[in-house]
């Protein structure tokens, strides 16, 4: 009896990455960060990450990167990423910009995804710095988009809650993964995210 092995071929990776990038670029940028749940601004903020694939992908890949290195790096990420995101968000509210920053989001995905795929034994300061920079930048982008809404501060608060919950839950799942094939699966996921980032960069430069 032969066992079918799942091979993450280049064609499959490309197809999945293309699907993710289409999701990421699904809506016009101006609306990409604005979610209305009908439950008030805090819930709008909470729903923001779930309904913004590009931001969600950034968070997920950073959690994967930290969680693969164990609970210590995950704890640091849990403290740093939401903080950096909110500080960046407040900056975005203050210094509003109208230029598209999709290329930089793509760069974040490419960099973090590639690091997950490579599974390098990165020291804590490197992961922490990366989380602070990427979190701060994406927070800035979010804040700039939210500046047009009447309850932007409350929406940022909702985003903070969502970030803490998402980072906690994903890290809680990934940290205990010890099986070799699980690690391979996480690395494959990282490669998809990196490919998505590359496509996003190309797409935004072309536009």
């Amino acid at each position, binding site marked *: 009896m032969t066992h079918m092995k799942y091979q993450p071929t280049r064609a499959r990776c490309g197809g999945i990455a293309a699907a993710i990038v289409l999701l990421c670029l699904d809506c016009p940028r101006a609306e990409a960060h604005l979610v*209305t749940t*009908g*439950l*008030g601004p*805090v*819930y709008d903020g909470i729903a923001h990450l779930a309904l913004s694939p590009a931001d969600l992908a950034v968070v997920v890949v950073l959690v994967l990167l930290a969680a693969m290195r164990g*609970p210590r790096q*995950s*704890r640091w990420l*849990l403290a740093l990423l939401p903080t950096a995101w909110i500080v960046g968000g407040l900056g975005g509210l203050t210094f509003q910009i109208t230029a598209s920053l999709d290329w930089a989001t793509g760069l974040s995905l490419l960099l973090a995804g590639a690091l997950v795929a490579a599974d390098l034994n990165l020291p804590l300061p490197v992961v922490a710095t990366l989380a602070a920079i990427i979190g701060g930048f994406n927070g800035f982008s979010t804040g700039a988009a939210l500046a047009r809404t009447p309850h932007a501060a*409350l929406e940022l*608060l*909702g985003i*903070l*809650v969502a970030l*803490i*919950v998402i980072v*906690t*839950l994903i*890290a*809680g*799942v990934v*940290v*205990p993964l010890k099986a070799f094939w699980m690690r391979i699966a996480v690395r494959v996921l990282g490669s998809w995210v990196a490919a998505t980032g590359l496509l996003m960069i190309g797409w935004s430069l072309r536009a």
Partner: protein
Amino acid sequence: MKLAILIFVLFATFATSAFAHEVRPAYLELRQTGPETYDALWKVPGLGQDLRLGLYVELPVGCTNVTEPRASAINNAFTERWPVECAGGLGGGRIHIAGLSATMTDVLVRLERLDGATQVTRLTPSNPSFVVEAMPSRWRMAATYLRLGTDHILRGVDHLLFVLGLLLIVGNRWTLFKTITAFTAAHSITLAAATLGYASAPLPPLNAAIALSILFLGPEIVRVRRDETSLTIRYPWLVAFAFGLLHGFGFASGLKATGLPQTDIAWALLLFNVGVEIGQLFFVFLILAIARSFRTLEIRWPRWALALPGYTVGTLGAYWTIERTAILLGFIR
């Protein structure tokens, strides 16, 4: 359970800006009385004695008021009734609520046709209009009430805080199961009784009592942390049942505020309650998953952080109790 502290801090921050039971949707009922005629009922939440929310019904082109609306104000709600004539009927026409986009409330619309078929739709600030269906779907109506129930508990910060308080007190899974079941059973009883008109509780003292139930849990959480015991700690399901009866009246206020007609009330009640349970279970499982992840991440909380949940619950409970008692006594409006 102690490790849900971080959630608590954030929760406390926005809880003060969110007032529980603010879920008072406006209600529009259009009952067909002839091929092209309807009786309209429009109920808008009041803002004190003389003011009301600035929401106005815009019926499809071709609809005209047969008479001027008859207005009345009862129980802090403004009601208008008037007959409408729509050339060709309402089917396919768009109904819009002007001013809804500028509020944070919802509008429940119920359209009853001559054959008894109904269409129920929930309009929100982001979706303030809808097209009347030629053939109404029962599934859509069910989904509307279900969503209303889920929304009510997710917006009801005081209900969630009470459930969180219970989670912080219970010691094991079996006790947790009994406690959540007791809370569910109790609030279902009073929700049904209040909605069907067998019992009632005036809103201002009810809100104060619900706040008191949260305040009550604060010291109990602190006792759990100090390894002390009490009736609540030994039998949390008992407390959950007793206070659950109060919270059920609170849930009923969300459903009764819509002024639903008796013909749909049992169906609406069931689905609304199921919606409440879905929201409640989602919240419980989310907190349990977060607590489990905190353990996996081996987070060592400082002593002050471990004490925070009890004091947060108690402080918020005290804040709401004082505020709502002041409203009850007429010191603030």
